[in-house]
C-alpha cells in the first residue's frame, strides 16, 4: 500500500508531465524504430472534438507550400437537419492513404507509390502531370499543383514524420481531434481509439480501404454529400472576385 506522501508525489509528477507535453502527441509521437518494426501510419479524426476552425488547413498549406486555391486538407462544413432542428457538422478531408489506393496503378510513369509505412507519396521529379491519378482518387484528395505542374496531395507530412514529428495538421489541431500514429501497434493512441470506438471511413464501397478513420461520422456525410444548396452554389452565382 502506498503512503499518502507517495501518492501526492506521483500526482505532482503527473501534473507536471501533463502540463509540459502536448496532449495529442503524448502517445502518438512517431519514433524511428531501432527494432526494424515498420509502422503503418494512419489517422483517427474524432469529429466530436473538431470545431471546424481550419487551423489544420492553414498549417498544412504553410508547412507544404500549397498554392493558393488548392488544398491538401480541408474541413468541409455542413448544416444537417436533426430532430431538434438544423445542426452543424464538420468533416476534415485529406488523402486517406488507402491500403488499396486506386491512384497508384493508373500512373503511367510510376511517379506515385506507397511507402512501406503506408504513406502514398509522389515523386515530383518523375511526375509528368498527366492528371490521371487525380481522376482516379475517389476523395478529391489530389490536385495538379499549378506552381510545380505535377500532382500534389497530403503525404502525412512525410518530411516531419521522418524527423520524429507529427504531421502539421495534427500538431496544430486545437481540439485534439486529429490523432496520428502506428496502426500496427496496439499501444498507439490510434489503435486504442479504433478499438474503443465505432469508427467509419469515407466511401467504403469504393474498395480502397482508407486508413483515415472517423469517430462520430454522420452517415449522410460518408459518401458523396448530396447538399441541396450552399456555398458552392453561391460561388457559382456570384461574379468571381480575386482576393
Amino acid at each position, binding site marked *: 500500500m502506498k503512503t499518502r506522501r507517495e501518492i501526492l508525489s506521483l500526482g505532482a509528477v503527473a501534473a507536471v508531465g501533463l502540463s509540459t507535453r502536448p496532449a495529442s502527441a503524448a502517445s502518438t509521437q512517431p519514433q524511428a524504430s531501432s527494432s526494424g518494426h515498420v509502422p503503418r501510419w494512419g489517422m483517427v479524426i474524432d469529429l466530436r472534438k473538431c470545431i471546424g476552425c481550419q487551423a489544420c488547413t492553414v498549417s498544412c498549406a504553410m508547412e507544404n507550400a500549397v498554392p493558393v486555391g488548392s488544398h491538401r486538407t480541408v474541413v468541409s462544413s455542413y448544416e*444537417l437537419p436533426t430532430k431538434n432542428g438544423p445542426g452543424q457538422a464538420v468533416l476534415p478531408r485529406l488523402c486517406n492513404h488507402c491500403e488499396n489506393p486506386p491512384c497508384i*496503378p493508373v500512373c503511367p510513369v510510376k511517379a506515385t507509390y506507397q511507402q512501406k509505412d503506408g504513406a502514398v507519396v509522389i515523386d515530383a521529379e518523375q511526375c*509528368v*502531370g498527366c492528371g490521371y491519378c487525380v481522376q482516379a482518387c475517389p476523395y478529391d484528395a489530389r490536385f495538379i499543383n499549378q506552381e510545380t505542374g*505535377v500532382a500534389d496531395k497530403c503525404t502525412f507530412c512525410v518530411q516531419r514524420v521522418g524527423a520524429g514529428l507529427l504531421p502539421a495538421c495534427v500538431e496544430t489541431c486545437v481540439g485534439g481531434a486529429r490523432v496520428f500514429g502506428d496502426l500496427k501497434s496496439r499501444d498507439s493512441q490510434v489503435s486504442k481509439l479504433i478499438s474503443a470506438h465505432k469508427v467509419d471511413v469515407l466511401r467504403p464501397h469504393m474498395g480502397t480501404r482508407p486508413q483515415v478513420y472517423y469517430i462520430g461520422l454522420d452517415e449522410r456525410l460518408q459518401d458523396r454529400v*448530396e447538399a441541396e444548396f450552399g456555398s458552392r452554389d453561391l460561388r457559382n452565382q456570384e461574379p468571381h472576385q480575386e482576393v
Partner: protein
Amino acid sequence: MENGIVDLVSFDQGFAWRHWAVWYFLLVGSAVGASLIAFITTLRDENDPKVRSALFAAAALGIAAPFPLLADLHQPARFMHFYLGAAPDSIMWWGSWFLPGFVAGLAALVLLYSPFASRFTAYRRYVWYWTTVFAIAVLAYTAGEMTIVRARPVWHDLFFPVILTLSALVSGSGAVTIVSAARGEVWDMVRRMLGLGSLLFVAGILTWIATGLGKSGTFTELAVQDHPVSLLFVMTGACGVGVAALAATRVALLNVVAGIFAVLGALVFRWELFMGAQAQPKTEAGFLPYSLLADGDALAGLFGTVGLLVVIVVILSLILVDEGNGEDARPASHTTH
C-alpha cells in the same frame, strides 16, 4: 432531392484534364474511325481511289492528335518519362506506345501512297495491318483508361466505352465524308455508316440517360441537372438526327454538311463527357463552373488545333496525290456511285 443538407464551407479542386484532352480524344477517335473505313475498303480493292480519301482524313486527324495530348500534360517536357520505364498496370502507359504506333503507321501509309514511294506499293498491305491493329488498340485504350476510373461514375459505366467508340466511328465517317465530298466522290458505304451510326449514337445517349434516372453523379445528372450541359446534349442529339437525315442524300454539299455535323456532335459530346464529368465534385453535390467561352486558353486551343489541322491538310495535299498522274488529289475528276 430534398434532404435539408446545406454545404456551409466547401472547396473546389481544379480540373486536372483541360480542354486539350477533348481535342485529343476527338482527333484520335475520328482518325481511328477513318482509318478503319480505309482498311475495310482496301480489303475489297487496295487501289480503290476512295482509299485515299479515307487515308487523307485519317492521316490529317491522326498526325494532329499527339499535339493536344502533349499540351494536356502539365509537364510536357517530361513526356520521355513514358518511355524510360515500364508501367504495365497503367492503361495510359500502354496507350503511350499504341499512339505512336498508330501515327507512324498512318505516316508510312501516306508515304506509300505518294509518288515518292511508288516502288514500294507491295508493302502497303503489311502497313495497313500494322495500322489497323494499332488503331483498334488506340480505340480500346482511350475508352478503357477512362472506363476503369471508378471515382467518376459518368465514365465508370458500361455505356461509356460503347457510346464513345460509336461516336468515334461516326465522327470518323463524318471526316471521310467531308474529304470524299471535297474530292467529288459520293461514297455510299460511308454515307450509310454515317446515317446508321448517328441514329445508334442518339439512341444510345437517350438509353444511357434513361438508365441513370434518379442516381447521383451519373451521366443523367450531368445531362439533366446542369442546364447548360443539357442544352448541349440536346444540340448533340439534334446534330445526330440531322446527320442521319442529311446522310440519306446523294448531294455532295449536303454530305459535307452532314460530315461537319458529325464531327461537331462528337466534339460537343466529348466536351460534356470530359469537362462535364470533371465539373462534378466526387465527394459533394453541385457543379464546378467551367465554360469554353470563359476560358481564353481553351479558345486559343480551339483555334490552335484548327490551325494545326489546316497546316497538316495542306502538307498532305502536296504528298497524297493521285497515283499515276502526280496531280493533286483534290480535284473532282472522278465521281463514283
